[in-house]
């Protein structure tokens, strides 16, 4: 076992502004899965085994411990708790074999949970998604402060999870705080 300590993308303290709480979630391990030519069915079978269902276009399967969402044609992002699934890419690759290409993504993203009554107001000045029409499990790739992010509508009506580029965690967090203050 190695002795290196991981650092969170930002290490931001949870903040509540008005009704909205913004928390960095450092516990998510991620890997992307892309079906190979001819591997769609085999890939779907594995995804179904892992998640219970294959995430449809624009949708997330909110499942425990693994969850997954659609990223593009024949491409999905799979997430799971970091403390049990740090090697999620290897785990998936082992199951998928040549049916899919798997790429480790844990390091590429910063994850924020945004929860609160005014979350939809905040979303409206952050990004171009129809937040009030989205239902639990909907996912959108969108731009927040010029950064390509995924916004996942979680089970609770006032909860979204945002995956943004890790290197810009600070800028993204600043944008979230600014927007929350603006609508508070």
């Amino acid at each position: 076992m190695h002795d290196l300590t991981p650092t969170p993308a930002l290490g931001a303290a949870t903040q509540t502004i008005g009704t909205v709480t913004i928390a960095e979630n450092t516990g998510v391990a991620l890997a992307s899965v892309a079906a190979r030519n001819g591997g769609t069915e085999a890939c779907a079978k594995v995804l179904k085994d892992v998640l219970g269902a294959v995430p449809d276009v624009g949708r997330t399967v909110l499942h425990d411990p693994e969850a997954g969402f659609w990223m593009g044609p024949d491409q999905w992002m799979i997430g799971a708790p970091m403390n049990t699934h740090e090697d999620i890419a290897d785990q998936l690759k082992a199951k998928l074999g040549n049916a899919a290409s798997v790429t480790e993504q844990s390091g590429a993203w910063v994850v924020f949970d945004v929860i609160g009554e005014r979350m939809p107001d905040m979303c409206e000045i952050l990004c171009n998604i129809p937040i009030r029409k989205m239902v639990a499990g909907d996912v959108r790739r969108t731009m927040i402060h010029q950064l390509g992010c995924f916004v996942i509508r979680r089970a609770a009506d006032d909860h979204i999870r945002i995956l943004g580029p890790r290197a810009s965690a600070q800028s993204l967090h600043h944008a979230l705080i600014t927007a929350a203050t603006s609508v508070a």
Partner: protein
Amino acid sequence: MIIDHPLLGPRDSAEFTYMGDARLIDRPNPNDTDAAATFFDYAYLRDNPAGWHRELWFHEAGDRSWLVVTRNTLTHEISKVELARDVARAQGRSK
């Protein structure tokens, strides 16, 4: 503008990067004897119509699909949006 993505539905065109004429799918065969001429035509000459135009857009801030959008350059009306991969295959491109 709104591009009605065949998978994702309506999206602001600001999410996309534009490339141009969808004839760029029709890359000539480099082994043809007149390849120098056909590649010049392919790379440089455009119909550039005032009216309906089939063109390539990349969903950069979305699902990373290349799309073929049929759009009127006089009115910006969009009549059809297809996945470029499907179009390319239908036009006989393979490997």
